[in-house]
């Protein structure tokens, strides 16, 4: 039980996909302009991660190691397509603002990385905890980045204006602003981790 909790929490802080492993940065850079986008992307990626981790760990003995990568990709792509169809059907506005980055979850190295590094060696329950932890960590990281960017770039959080008379800094709404924010946060998290050891 204790080890399961550990599998779950390591994805949030110690092995956070964005800030420590630096995986899946492309969608992070692209969609983190607003908190709503960040949450939507995080949930979609978590769903894919959970689904693919579960299936991969379930059929890991059935997949020959020589063709494991194409098998993983097919499994991941299936879940991504399911997520995309559901987004289109139930939340078209979010689907439009996430755009091409939903289908691109297929090539999010965080998802394949988890299948390859964890799910194919561990049992169902720990894979579930690992996938959930990684997904939650990714979502929290996206929320943090997009909150900073939405506030600085447009003066709003979740679409609500916080202060009157705050002049937004446009650069934070653009990709260069995303690089700045992520770079500084990466440095900050590394500093925290270094202090601990």
């Amino acid at each position, binding site marked *: 039980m204790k080890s399961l909790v550990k599998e779950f929490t390591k994805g949030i802080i110690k092995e956070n996909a964005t800030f420590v492993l630096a995986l899946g940065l492309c969608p992070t850079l692209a969609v983190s302009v607003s908190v709503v986008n960040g949450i939507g992307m995080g949930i979609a990626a978590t769903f894919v991660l959970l689904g693919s981790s579960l299936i991969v760990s379930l*059929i890991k003995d*059935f*997949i*020959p190691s*020589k*063709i494991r990568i*194409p*098998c993983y990709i*097919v*499994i991941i*792509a*299936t879940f991504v*397509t*399911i997520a995309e*169809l*559901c987004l*289109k*059907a*139930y939340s*078209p506005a979010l689907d439009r603002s996430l755009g091409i980055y939903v289908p691109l979850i297929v090539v999010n190295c965080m998802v394949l990385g988890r299948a390859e590094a964890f799910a194919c060696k561990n049992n169902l329950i720990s894979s579930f905890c690992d996938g959930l932890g990684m997904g939650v960590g990714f979502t929290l990281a996206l929320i943090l980045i997009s909150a900073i960017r939405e506030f600085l770039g447009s003066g709003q959080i979740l679409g609500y204006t916080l202060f009157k008379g705050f002049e937004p800094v*446009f650069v934070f*709404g*653009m990709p260069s602003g995303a690089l700045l924010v992520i770079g500084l946060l990466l440095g900050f998290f590394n500093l925290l981790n270094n202090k601990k050891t």
Partner: protein
Amino acid sequence: MKEVARYGFILALICIIAAGLLAGVNTLTRSKIAAQAQAEEQAALKEVMPQAAKFTEVKLGQEKLYYKAVDTQDNLIGFVFTANGKGYSSVIKTLTGMFLNGKISAIKVMSLNETPGLGMRVTKNSFTRQFNNQDALSLSGVQAITGATISSKAIMNSVVKKAQEIKELIKSEK
């Protein structure tokens, strides 16, 4: 050789299961997605011509030409059309409502990918509001946004051009 066949079989099996699953999800969501697209289209049409009660598509073959807008008594009151203009970094699609007398009811920018903070400002109300009640063929009262001249002009020129085309079409129909 035997191994290759086995690998192929396993991969094919996974693909078949995946395809079956996707087909199922697709059937579940297809009607919902189509309904969403339709509702969105109707909402956008309503936005550029709130006075109309119903819109009917006018098609030439497969191509959508424009929409006829009718009021509650089924009288034709105007047309709604989509204008495409080449902006600074994308094609800007604008939905335009035009009354029978050639005056614009309202416009709505449907899709674009211009520079954030510059060209993207053409979606703002302060710009699009200027089009209301303008003559569609001249747009004399519309001012381009400072710093977003190319994007603004793209919308204006495409609306004027398309309005001309629509007028020709309607004339030839009569």
